[in-house]
């Protein structure tokens, strides 16, 4: 149980925030940050633990949004059910893309490229297909009832996304502690060596991609319930592919809390940049890109890795009175 205590503490602390803070602007900021953290947690399972850097996680996010929206709007499916099916669709897409790419042995730059291409193909298809509303997009009817997964207060939305993030944290921790997690990190560190030791690298990567797709799709499902609108640029746009990889890399890829920390830091910086820039577009993204380069340059293991390093250095610098006395005596 000890392994899950930090998660419980962090989630409990975050859960009381709406009881103290009543500002809608702040809550909205936190809801978006948590949603990005969830998308990033999905990326983290595959990229952080498995070392497979996807540049097209928008494919999963967008599929989650569209499946949730279209099932409700066109087929009258209950929102909660549609939400679940959206997540399942993300997992299925993960199996499809993973099956195709890993079976052909695509790694590194090639894997990054092919994921990017899948996201782009889906974006173009969504921008012309009638079922997605093509260029107009899909609008979910306002219906502020819990059974429609829509809430009057931001706090309720906040707790929903927090619960999803909590679940993703627990799943990540479970993976980390499992044999599957050990195989996954072995593949990340040296795929050929892992294969030589009998790890079925293709299946391990495929399973990671399914989990990854499901978690990132969940962020998309939430997006559309929260904003009630989606079009092809939002769903499959590069913005979400970039934010999904930015948050774990900046926070600490291959750590449980990396994406959450990364999302809070990145979103705060973006907000600050937007405040400085006023209504001029682009400055927040300039900050994101610059922070990404700086983090890779100076603490390649992300902020969590950086803090770890700092703590170790401080401990080393501390004088050790007992040892010193012993050596003097």
């Amino acid at each position: 149980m000890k392994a899950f205590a930090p998660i419980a503490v962090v989630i409990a602390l975050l859960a009381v925030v709406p009881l103290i803070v009543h500002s809608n602007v702040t809550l909205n900021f936190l809801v978006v940050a948590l949603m990005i953290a969830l998308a990033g947690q999905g990326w983290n399972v595959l990229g952080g633990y498995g070392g497979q850097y996807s540049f097209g996680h928008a494919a999963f996010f967008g599929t989650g949004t569209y499946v949730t929206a279209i099932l409700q709007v066109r087929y009258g499916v209950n929102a909660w059910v549609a939400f679940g099916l959206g997540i399942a669709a993300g997992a299925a897409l993960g199996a499809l893309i993973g099956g195709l790419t890993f079976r052909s042995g695509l790694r590194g730059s090639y894997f990054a490229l092919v994921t990017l291409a899948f996201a782009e193909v889906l974006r173009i298809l969504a921008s012309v297909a009638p079922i997605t509303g093509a260029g107009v997009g899909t609008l979910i009817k306002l219906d502020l009832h819990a059974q429609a997964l829509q809430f009057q207060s931001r706090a309720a939305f906040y707790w929903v996304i927090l619960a999803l993030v909590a679940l993703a944290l627990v799943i990540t921790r479970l993976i980390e502690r499992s044999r599957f997690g050990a195989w996954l990190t072995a593949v990340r560190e040296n795929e050929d060596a892992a294969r030589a030791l009998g790890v079925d690298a293709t299946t391990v990567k495929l399973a990671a991609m399914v989990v990854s797709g499901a978690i990132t799709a969940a962020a998309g499902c939430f997006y559309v319930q929260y904003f009630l609108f989606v079009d092809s640029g939002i769903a499959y746009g590069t913005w979400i592919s970039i934010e999904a990889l930015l948050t774990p890399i900046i926070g600490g890829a291959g750590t449980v809390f990396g994406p959450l920390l990364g999302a809070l830091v990145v979103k705060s910086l973006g907000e600050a940049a937007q405040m400085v820039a006023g209504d001029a577009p682009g400055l927040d993204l300039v900050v994101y890109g610059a922070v990404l380069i700086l983090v890779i340059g100076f603490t390649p293991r992300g902020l969590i890795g950086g803090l770890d390093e700092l703590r170790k250095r401080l401990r080393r610098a501390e004088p050790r009175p007992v040892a010193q006395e012993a050596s003097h005596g």
Partner: protein
Amino acid sequence: MLSPTILIPAVLNGLLTGAVYALVALGLTLIYGVLHIINFAHGALLTAAMFAAYFAFHVLGIDPYIAVFIVAPAFFALGYGLQRFVIGPASHGDDRNMLLVTLGLAVVIENVLLFAFRGDTRTIDVPYTFQSIDIGFTFLAVPRLVGFGAVFVVALTLWLIMGFTDTGRAIRAVAKEKLGAQLAGIDVAHIYAVTFGLGTACIAIAACLLIPTYYVNPSAGDAFVLVAFTIVVLGGMGSVPGALIGGLVIGVVESLSSLFLGESLGQIGIFLIFIVVLLVRPQGLFGAKA
């Protein structure tokens, strides 16, 4: 429907467009061949070069075909500096980090341009924008013919540099065997930066060739770079003839598929080729087995 009077001009125009695609792809494949990473900042740098060519004409009144002699060396220096002082040091020699750093650069460059120039689309007016020549059965636009010729001049120049200069030999040595080259006294960091500079200069030339007939806005380069990815994958990563032939093929495919399927679905044709080639033959048509 398949009347030759429609088909042949479509193929010819596809070849002319494809040549410029090939030039963008040439820069990409050159960098991949030596550094073994895909430069995700390629599109953003192309956009930046298009802005440079735009302002050279708009502010200084320099014709894009003259400006190429200023913009290309400037972008060589920019590319050299980026690799030497940003990408190289920041990525600690790890390929995955290098990918991320180029992605970070792309985000920074694109959004600095957006911040500085807003989303407006700009074009320039040169006397030859709409000039075309009659070749009997169809008309060909003069700026695109110039572009077509220039691409082959650039490819020839690159081939000469690679084959007959010491720097070219050093680049080939580093591409083949990095450690061995280093032991032979070659400064690998310098060669990496020179290669990155050459790749960046290629897109600067492409930008100057494009600007008379194309528009520029902060995401103008994106359309080309996705096509360029397809070309290098089709032609084989790191293969220069592959990039040239791949560029021409993709130009024709795009021209024909937008003729039959319409503009937006025409793009899908390219991506499908891209995904199929990656899945079935990732080493490309001309690349060596990975």
